């Protein structure tokens, strides 16, 4: 445990992370170095959020601040078979693998990505299209949004870049796989992702965080996604890190005219995870579907803050967020929808549903609608409860024991979000994970 010097507030709070924003810059270009410098300059002004702030009311980071975090010096060793088991069939030849934050050419394979798609680590992506990357990297998430964005940007050197040319369509889904090992204690990785979908293009990207082992360590990830006119990005974000992990993530998405974003974020790992996801619907015809699932047990804590920003007229957003909490776990959902003054004819619907499986579990759901336009459809609903007694009776009346009936209904509740993932083998794997968590592992659910 780090000894934190008892000095003035802000400095004291960011002390546990000081080592993450220091050291020689690994930036592959001068303009990246400039981003890094700006973020490093901002760091002294930024402090660790506390539960005194509304956005962090239910998520206490004081445990994270008890460590003195260091960057990973060299990635841990991994077993090839263990990595192979994490691969997704459809994306075997369209994947980038990072071990403890470090790009691994050996485990990556991009032979199947198809024409017009660039899928590469930052340095290589710059060689292919420096001006395109330069125009976007750090634009949606700069180094001064909050402490975590600044730390991530201050360490910027490595990144996973998906750059889809105008009109190109991804043949296979792209798998960006971040594997954490049981590396040195108190070490942090700071993944950075840039997803660029050019006009009229279409691509599916799977952003996945896993641990081989108990997952001790801290992941601080930032993803920027820019979707061009009439382009379509399907984005699946899976946080399945080990039981000892701390995970903080930020996703920022911007949609041009008639652009479509379909996000499915699933948090089933880590001791504590926080995701801030913001989508800006910046032009008419933009459509965002933002779905989420938290599948928690034990003492796990998952916090998802989303912002759907209707900055233009005639845009549509849909959102379904589900939490399943067993043990003494805690799920937080804060779903903010802003409809700006000129965003007439906005069509927005948000639903959050929580399922409590134990008397000690806790769910906090907070829909926030801020509507400044007057011709708007904005529906929202939030429910938190237990399994439905009528549904349990239905299954029991068909001869199913009560415990089995509870597991089956829990599975069906969570599976609704999983079914929205557009990658078949991944759906099957996620179903199996839910079955395992609900103790129903022997059932085949077909389809």
């Amino acid at each position: 445990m780090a000894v934190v010097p008892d000095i003035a507030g802000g400095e004291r709070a960011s002390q546990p992370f000081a080592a993450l924003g220091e050291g020689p810059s690994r930036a592959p270009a001068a303009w990246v170095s400039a981003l890094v410098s700006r973020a490093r300059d901002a760091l002294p002004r930024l402090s660790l959020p506390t539960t005194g702030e509304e956005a962090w009311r239910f998520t206490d980071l004081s445990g994270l601040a008890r460590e003195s975090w260091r960057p990973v010096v060299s990635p841990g060793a991994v077993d090839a078979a263990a990595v192979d088991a994490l691969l997704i069939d459809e994306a075997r030849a369209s994947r980038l693998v990072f071990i403890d934050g470090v790009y691994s050419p050996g485990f990556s394979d991009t032979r199947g990505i198809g024409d017009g798609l660039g899928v590469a680590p930052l340095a290589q992506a710059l060689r292919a299209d420096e001006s395109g990357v330069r125009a976007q990297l750090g634009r949606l998430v700069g180094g001064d949004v909050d402490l975590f964005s600044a730390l991530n940007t201050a360490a910027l050197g490595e990144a996973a870049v998906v750059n889809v040319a105008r009109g190109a369509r991804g043949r296979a889904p792209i798998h960006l796989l971040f594997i954490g090992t049981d590396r040195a204690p108190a070490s942090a990785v700071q993944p950075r992702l840039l997803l660029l979908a050019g006009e009229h293009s279409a691509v599916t990207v799977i952003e996945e965080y896993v641990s081989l082992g108990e997952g001790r360590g801290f992941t601080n990830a930032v993803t920027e996604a820019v979707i061009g006119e009439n382009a379509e990005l399907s984005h699946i974000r899976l946080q399945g890190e080990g039981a000892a992990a701390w995970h903080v993530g930020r996703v920022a998405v911007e949609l041009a005219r008639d652009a479509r974003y379909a996000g499915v974020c699933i948090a089933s790992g880590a001791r504590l995870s926080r995701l801030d996801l913001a989508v800006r619907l910046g032009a008419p015809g933009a459509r965002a579907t933002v779905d989420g699932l938290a599948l928690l047990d034990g003492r796990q804590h998952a916090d998802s803050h989303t912002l759907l920003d209707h900055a233009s007229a005639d845009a549509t957003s849909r959102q379904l967020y589900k939490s399943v909490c067993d043990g003494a776990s805690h799920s937080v959902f804060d779903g903010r929808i802003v409809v700006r003054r000129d965003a007439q004819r906005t069509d927005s619907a948000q639903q959050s549903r929580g399922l409590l499986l134990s008397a000690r579990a806790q769910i906090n759901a907070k829909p926030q609608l801020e509507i400044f336009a007057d011709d708007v459809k904005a529906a929202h609903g939030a429910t938190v409860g237990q399994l439905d007694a009528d549904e349990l009776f239905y299954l029991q009346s068909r001869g199913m024991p009560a415990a089995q009936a509870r597991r089956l209904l829990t599975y069906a509740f969570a599976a609704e979000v999983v079914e929205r993932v557009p990658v078949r083998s991944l759906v099957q794997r996620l179903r199996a994970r839910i079955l395992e968590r609900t103790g129903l592992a022997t059932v085949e659910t077909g389809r």
Partner: protein
Amino acid sequence: MTNSAFLRLAYNTRAAARGHEELDPLEFDDLVREKAKLVEMDPAFLERSVNDGFSGGEKKRNEILQMAILEPKLAILDETDSGLDIDALRVVAGGVNALSGPDNAIVMVTHYQRLLDYIVPDYVHVMADGRILKTGDRSLALELESRGYDWVTGPAGARRAA
């Protein structure tokens, strides 16, 4: 979860409890397709989620299919005829007739005589406020149809029953 996966789970739970052999998905598929013919159900239904988007008639057929597969000793069919058109009623009734036998009992709850044109009951009980007021055979249902429930449940009816 698909209808057929749910049914297999229920079937195997019952089979285990009765000490019978459990069926694997292929064996179960044969069984369920055979039974689906009984209620003239399109096999595509088996691959849909349980009761998701089923019409009233489809739900009823599905319930008879469940009965055919799970073979309950006692089944309670509550208003199995409600919301069914004549064709669906005929199919559902045909299923019930095929499934009733000396080893099981079926209690049907209905407000109308119509269902009894297709399913001939062994007994007819008239129930009101949780009490059985009158018991008879099929002719009781026909008499009820012509005379109305007031005949049994009205003040006069109640006195007669007492």
